[in-house]
């Protein structure tokens, strides 16, 4: 039995990375992810790793890119405005299929947003590709501190398995909330050797930089054919969703990350009040659990999407539900702005449930 600790979500992401064998972190400070960088700046040098602070997020992303090409497990962490700055490198990484992990601790946008405010306003940017070139990232959306620790390990495995960028999507709430975490090491099936990694072209098995290009596939159509097949395999093998009391529910709530946590409580309150409500939680935002949602919607009367955004997730849900039943949205205007940050509370979601059922 592994030991447990109390950990914030941010610290759990940093610990998960070390657990997965990541020894190289490149980043630039930004609230609310700073605890990740802080933790790794102390811990990585102790295990022979490197914590490198760049002069900005753009440079950090290119450092990540360079590190990934050597075949080492590498990571950066950032928050929304910093994530925007990284997209030139992210797009380039997609072209050469460089595997890496980014922890995206969202804060409210657009623009510089508000450093101290909660928000889930990067859904489209993460899932549809914030950069150019019709690429895909795998996006994992944990909603407990334990999952942040576990999914960061999973992210490194998936990145290496598919040679793809994996984003672990958290936010202001998840990054700072503290829960008990079991520091377990997850076991994954063996991975193929990284025979593509650059070691220096003059060394044994060395590759020249030209090896890392879409042209190794023979041409542009072949490259996109290869990408499409890979994405299809990811959709088939890696789509993940949690079903919480959603069988036989009249109303199905769809929410991810921190709002799914609030929704889970709202479902519990509703069930205590005799209301047949359930939660379907996308764990992978891409690949999106389209089939599971389509099927669940066919048995329900209504669907309620809850997200701390003016409406991004709801577009994917509508596309999955295919007008079988009405889809309602409880979005950013449901936040209660009492404290330092606006938040969508479980009690507010329960009110919406009562209004709909």
């Amino acid at each position: 039995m592994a030991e447990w600790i109390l950990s914030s979500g941010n610290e759990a992401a940093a610990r998960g990375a070390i657990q997965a064998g990541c020894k190289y972190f490149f980043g630039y400070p930004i609230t609310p992810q700073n605890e990740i960088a802080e933790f790794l700046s102390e811990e990585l040098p102790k295990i022979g790793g490197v914590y490198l602070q760049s002069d900005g997020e753009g440079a950090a992303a290119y450092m990540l890119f360079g590190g990934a090409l050597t075949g080492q497990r590498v990571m950066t962490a950032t928050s929304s405005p910093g994530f925007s700055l990284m997209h030139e490198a992210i797009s380039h990484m997609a072209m050469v299929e460089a595997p890496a992990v980014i922890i995206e601790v969202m804060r409210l946008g657009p623009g510089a947003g508000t450093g101290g405010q909660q928000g889930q306003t990067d859904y489209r940017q993460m899932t549809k590709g914030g950069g150019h070139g019709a690429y895909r990232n795998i996006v994992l959306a944990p909603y407990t501190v334990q999952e942040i620790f576990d999914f960061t390990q999973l992210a490194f495995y998936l990145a290496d398995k598919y040679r793809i960028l994996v984003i672990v999507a958290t936010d202001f709430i998840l990054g700072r909330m503290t829960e008990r975490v079991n520091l377990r090491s997850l076991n994954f099936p063996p991975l193929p050797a990284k025979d593509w990694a650059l070691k220096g072209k003059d060394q044994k098995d060395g590759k020249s930089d030209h090896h890392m290009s879409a042209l190794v596939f023979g041409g542009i159509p072949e490259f996109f054919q290869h990408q499409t097949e890979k994405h299809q395999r990811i959709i088939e093998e890696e789509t993940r969703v949690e079903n919480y009391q959603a069988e036989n529910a009249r109303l199905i709530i769809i929410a991810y990350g921190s709002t799914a946590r609030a929704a889970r409580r709202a479902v519990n309150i509703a069930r205590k009040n005799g209301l047949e409500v359930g939660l379907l939680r996308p764990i992978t935002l891409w690949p999106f659990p389209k089939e599971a949602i389509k099927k669940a919607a066919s048995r329900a009367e209504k669907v309620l999407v809850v997200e701390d955004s003016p409406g991004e997730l709801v577009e994917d849900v509508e596309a999955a539900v295919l007008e079988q039943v009405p889809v309602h949205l409880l979005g950013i205007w449901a936040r209660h702005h009492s404290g330092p940050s606006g938040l969508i509370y479980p009690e507010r979601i329960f009110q919406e449930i009562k209004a709909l059922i």
Partner: protein
Amino acid sequence: MEKKESLLFQVTITGLGGQGALLFGQLLAEAGATRFKNVSFFPQYATVMRGGESECTVTLSEEEIDSPLVFEPQTAVVMAAPQLKQFEKRVVSGGMIFIDSSVITEKIERRDVKVFYLPATRAATELGDTRVANLVFLGAYLAATEAIPIEAVEEILDKRFKGRIKETLLSLNKKALRAGAKLVIGKRED
């Protein structure tokens, strides 16, 4: 300590940056984790060094904690006046509100909650440092709810601060806990 009937304790501590609302929550969460199967601590604070709104919610539970965010907490500890009105509305019926009567003069109008008007800042000042008012409140909260024994928090104080701060500062914090508990004993109803 006898087994509590209710296996859930949930408190929101609210104050201004620098008053130690978050340290109250961290200590309760860390000590609570040695007694309860599930613990959550959720802080939120304005991005200013001092004087901005600062609050956190701690839940200690034997059951799974569905959400660390709670709009209507069981208990609220109000360390600064601006947040009093909204927490008077938010605390659940039958819940508790702790108020620093040395800095807040308003009274609670609701009759369905238990209210503790405690001169926490004054007690802290008498002990020698205004800044331990948060520990006075933590001691008071533990005495009123019996969520966990005061000793559990003292152990965490030792673990966190022994050798890192002056021994006198550590014992000051422990004295503040005890002083807070004393304020509550014999003052249960209001």
